[in-house]
């Protein structure tokens, strides 16, 4: 087996590209690229966290964007109330997401299949409507973030390049963390429960509590992505946790490749870059994007990453 299979090559090129992107954007004089890719990287963090529960754990959450919303509202509400320190905002965003994931998970993980999908969706929509009802914080219009999180001179989030690299570092850390997790004892339990839950019980695993911990870890990571998203858009609104956003995250994971460490990143890049490219061609870009996604889901199990893995053998 060669170390540099096509699949590895693509990942290496992608990672190098992401690292060098700000330089390219500078040279090419297109700051827009940096904005686009900051967005991609943040959503790739969210998608990677979803992959942990959906790809590896078989828990198809249709409400994962709720943590994006909770993370951003934690930052937004803090800023609105005059707390601008990131050292307070971000841990709060993480803690609130973890707590919310604990509650959602504790209830929804008692169900399976379609019921699980519907309950996670219902919780996310509930949070969405609660956010709309927050009149003090802009209701359904959302609110502008007056200032980005401050980190006592450690890093200036207003510096677009610095912010991009912070997001990228957090993405790499997330991918590494998920990779270590799924190859640990804990990861085997999670994947075993996806593969054959009944057998897991028979050999002595209390499956529920492992799933719940996994669910909370994923929600927590996604909450951090939410804190990044608020700082990126300078704006906080209920739209961040709308069910269509949860759907986008699922598409990224499925498109890139479930249960693959770099799949969600590949999926996020592919989906958002396609969206961008196609919307430049026509106003009705969804008409092109939809069938493309359908074809990949129908004919390429394992997503883009799966195609790359198979090409190696060809």
């Amino acid at each position, binding site marked *: 087996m060669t170390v540099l299979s096509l699949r590895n090559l693509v990942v290496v090129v992608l990672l190098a590209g992401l690292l060098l992107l700000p330089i390219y954007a500078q040279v090419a004089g297109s700051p827009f690229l940096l904005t686009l890719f900051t967005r991609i990287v943040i959503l790739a963090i969210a998608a990677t966290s979803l992959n942990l529960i959906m790809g590896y754990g078989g828990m198809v959450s249709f409400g994962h964007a709720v943590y994006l919303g909770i993370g951003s509202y934690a930052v937004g509400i803090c800023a609105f109330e005059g707390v601008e320190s990131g050292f307070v905002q971000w841990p709060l965003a993480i803690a609130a997401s973890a707590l919310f994931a604990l509650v959602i998970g504790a209830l929804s993980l008692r169900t399976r299949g379609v019921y699980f999908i519907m309950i996670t969706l219902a919780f996310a929509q509930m949070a969405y409507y609660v956010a709309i009802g927050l009149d003090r914080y802009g209701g359904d219009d959302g609110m502008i973030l007056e200032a980005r999180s401050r980190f006592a001179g450690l890093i200036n989030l207003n510096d677009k390049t610095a912010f991009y690299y912070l997001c990228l570092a957090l993405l790499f850390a997330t991918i590494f963390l998920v990779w*270590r*997790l799924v*190859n*640990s*004892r*804990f*990861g*085997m*339990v999670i*994947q*075993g429960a996806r*593969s*054959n839950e*009944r*057998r*897991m*019980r*028979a*050999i*002595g*695993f*209390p*499956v529920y509590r*492992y799933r719940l*911990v996994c669910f909370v870890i994923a929600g927590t990571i996604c909450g951090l992505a939410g804190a990044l998203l608020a700082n990126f858009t300078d704006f906080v609104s209920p739209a961040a946790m709308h069910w269509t956003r949860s759907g986008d995250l699922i598409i990224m994971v499925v498109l890139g490749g479930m249960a693959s460490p770099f799949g969600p990143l590949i999926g996020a890049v592919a989906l958002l870059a396609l969206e961008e490219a196609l919307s430049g061609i026509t106003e009705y870009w969804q008409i092109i994007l939809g069938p493309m996604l359908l074809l990949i889901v129908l004919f390429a199990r394992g997503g883009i990453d799966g195609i790359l893995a198979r090409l190696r053998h060809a």
Partner: protein
Amino acid sequence: MPEPILLVEQLSKRFGGIVATDQLSLAIPPGELHAIIGPNGAGKTTLIGQLTGELWPNGGRIIFNGDDVTTLPVHRRSALGLARSFQITSLFLDFTALDNVALAVQAHAGHSFRFWKPVRAERALRDPAMAAIERVGLADRANILVSRLSHGEHRQLEIAMALATRPRMLLLDEPMAGMGPEESARMVETLRELKKELTILLIEHDMEAVFALADRISVLVYGRVIACDTPENIRQNAEVRRAYLGEQQVATRHG
């Protein structure tokens, strides 16, 4: 008779109006290979379900190794040393054979809230798993995805997984189901080896295997034990013959 390792007293289970387990009592001493036979619909699977904890009885008690386990959840019984194999092969198809068994070892090696260390490098899990795989004769197939193994190999692997949990007692639910004669013979050999160290409750349709292996046989009809004796005596038992003869007549009428 020594203190039984598994004691079932007056066990009852109803599904609506149907009595699947009817005041069933059973005592299995340590070291015995005890077979349960009976016509289809006799309640064998319902009994296994209650012993493993997937079903709760409506009445009666199950004592395992001195502990009342009647209402204990599945994973707790497994932790006490009561392991089972499944009638229908139930494995982790997208894992390798070794990963399957290592997971069973892991289940009994403390909690699994260990998030960082690579699990496939843990000798404490891999070595016992490999040993269990060797015992059922699958050593050369250890690193193959389970979905690519044959049916007979799946059945062997089922046993290896039950073994890997280091049980005191094995509940084997039709381990020979769907096997060819050659595979069956191999399974009988494996079980004969295991019998030397473990108490085994065997539910099986293959009468040849049952009579070759069992120390004692219980015959289950309509949820009740109608006879419990050595293979020789069971063979002579008139009531048992009638029960089986009855089934055959029914089968002929339908077929």
